[in-house]
């Protein structure tokens, strides 16, 4: 191992501190805003640390008072959970057979993967007007389920693409051996391929979940009232003239908890899943 010179070591540590502060500072400020009272937040010059700890907004955001902000938040939370779960499971259900098929076709189905990649890159604005017309004609606007179906247009191609590269790593020989033993295709998939590719499945599912959790454009246009998802709820809270900065921050913190926890605990598999999908490993 090469030894580092002292100036280089100092440079490394200084850079690391700068990077750490750059990443953390905005988040810490978001947290501070959520626990400061309004007067602390609107005093000049700005106080970096609140004089009093004010946790009432966390109580407010989960309170069950009728027609209150807490109810609206909890409904949005429920919708986000439902949409992201339905959409990511649906995405997997569509993607698993497709990805396996493309992977085992050994290049004969290349074309379909091009299409998959191309569709993932289509801007939603190119699809949204007819989708609106169609959902409206079917009376299916403002429904969590419709939104999840719409999300399939993003998630199905994406998860197929991720899974395909991972299925490539499952040795086809094991599957062939089982096939010779007379196993049916669904048995092979269930007993051999999917267990072997389980980390990739988890990764793809979680990725899809995060994408659906994050989606804003379709949700803004296709939901209202009881079908709003969290991003729309937060944009409504912040986009208007609600002047309680602390409440906006609190909603932001709460809405970030699930994806941040997922990201944090699964970061290893997320990264490897992404690199395996993005890069021919």
């Amino acid at each position, binding site marked *: 191992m090469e030894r580092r010179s002292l100036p280089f070591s100092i440079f490394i540590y200084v850079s690391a501190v700068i990077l750490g502060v750059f990443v953390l500072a905005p988040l810490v400020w978001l947290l501070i805003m959520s626990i400061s009272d309004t007067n602390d937040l*609107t005093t000049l010059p700005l106080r970096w640390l609140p004089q009093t700890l004010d946790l009432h907004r966390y109580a407010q955001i989960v309170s069950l008072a009728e027609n209150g902000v807490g109810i609206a938040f909890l409904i949005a939370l429920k919708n986000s959970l439902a949409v992201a779960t339905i959409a990511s499971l649906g995405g997997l259900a569509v993607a698993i057979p497709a990805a396996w098929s493309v992977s085992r076709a050994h290049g004969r189905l290349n074309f379909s993967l091009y299409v998959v990649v191309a569709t993932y890159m289509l801007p939603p604005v190119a699809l949204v007007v007819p989708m609106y017309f169609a959902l409206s004609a079917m009376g299916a606007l*403002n429904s969590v389920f419709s939104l999840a179906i719409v999300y399939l247009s993003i998630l199905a191609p994406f998860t197929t693409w991720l899974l395909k590269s991972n299925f490539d790593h499952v040795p086809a020989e094991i599957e062939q051996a089982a096939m010779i033993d007379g196993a049916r295709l669904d048995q092979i998939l269930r007993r051999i391929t999917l267990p072997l590719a389980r980390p990739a499945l988890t990764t793809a599912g979680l990725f899809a979940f995060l994408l659906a959790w994050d989606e804003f454009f379709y949700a803004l246009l296709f939901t*209202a009232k009881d079908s709003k998802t969290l991003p729309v709820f937060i944009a*409504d809270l912040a986009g208007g003239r*609600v002047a309680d900065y602390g409440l906006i921050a609190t909603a932001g913190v709460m809405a970030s908890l699930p994806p941040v926890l997922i990201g944090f605990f699964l970061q290893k598999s997320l990264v490897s899943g992404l690199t395996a999908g993005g890069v021919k490993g």
Partner: protein
Amino acid sequence: MFTTYRSRLMQAIVGGAVLVGAQSLGFGALADTTLNALFMAQAAYSEDNVRAMTADFEAANPGVKINLEFVPYEGLHDKTTLAQGAGGGYDVVLFDVIWPAEFAENKVLLDVTDKVTQEMKDGVLPGAWTTVEYQNKRYGLPWILDTKYLFYNTEILEKAGIKTPPKTWAELLDQAKIVKEKKLAEYPIVWSWAQAEAAICDYTTLVAAYGGSFLDADGKPAFQNGGGVDALKYMADSLEAGLSNPNSKEYLEEDVRRVFSSGEAAFALNWTYMYNMANGDPKESKIVGKVGVVPAPGVEGKSEASAVNGSMGLGITSTSKHPDEAWNYIAFMTSKAEQEKFAKLSLPIWADSYSSPAVTGGQEALVAAAKTSLGLMFPRPTTPTYQQMSTQLQQAIHAALLKQASPEDALKTAADSAGGGL
């Protein structure tokens, strides 16, 4: 065997008949009806006010439940039209004075002309009715009767040695200059000039003062001449002179309230609701008891005072499955009793409320200003394509405020593209 069968059959028939009978007798209304109502989350009645008023309605009308949704003003128009395509949209929507033309053309709102009672016709201020009218039909009931007033910080004015608040816009700049020179406020005037409808409201107030107009007799743009240009010049000049807060360019009404309530500004143009929030609520304001309010000024030789019609109405959507219950709800919300009960953040639509102590008590200054301003309310253009025209104007105003173009050129560009746009 046979008897049980027969008795069951009888039960079914009787049960069914009772059910049908009950429904035909109108007992069906007793079953819970849920109405979805869309409101905005700022300016005028607060969310808490709307909740309290709605709770009053629910208490008086058992069996009807109201689901409230609050969106920012910026989302109100789009949410209403988008939900129109959805079967299960809203029953009751809050709409701005500038939308009835579009909503009538696109059949978003129910025509309620025939439901309006004589009592309403006689009692509600004529200016309020213009909020809900298009081509002699009424598309709802006026609810928020609002215009922009000039607010001032009495303490700052006193320190500056200013005895009376400005009567003309020129005088406002003079007084602001004194305040700035005496270092009582870095930027004495604060406005809501973000690229949004809020900027149009401030601009309209000035257009009214300068005797300008938006459209000529043929419905062609006219704001690029005369008063329309003077108004924008005034805005740009006040920024240039450092008398208007430069951040006004990204402010909406709540930002104006924050800045004014923190004592950083001597003057502010804003809606009714700011008066009691800034003057009476120590949790929201550092200048409690130091807030003065007068009608927005005029221009010498042209006007005594100025005002924009910033009112809003409550309407019933054409897709509502419960138009009768919805009508009861909006009639309740706009009733004199209810409006007088919640007259702090928005003033009633009823003429004789303005002499009722329940309304004037504790806010005499505001009511006095309202008596002048509400009679002067200047309309923004009535056209089904208002959204486009407003967007063009917002861009022109910003271009001039940011010195990308002179006020004349900016407004001329907007006028040229106001019809077609993109």
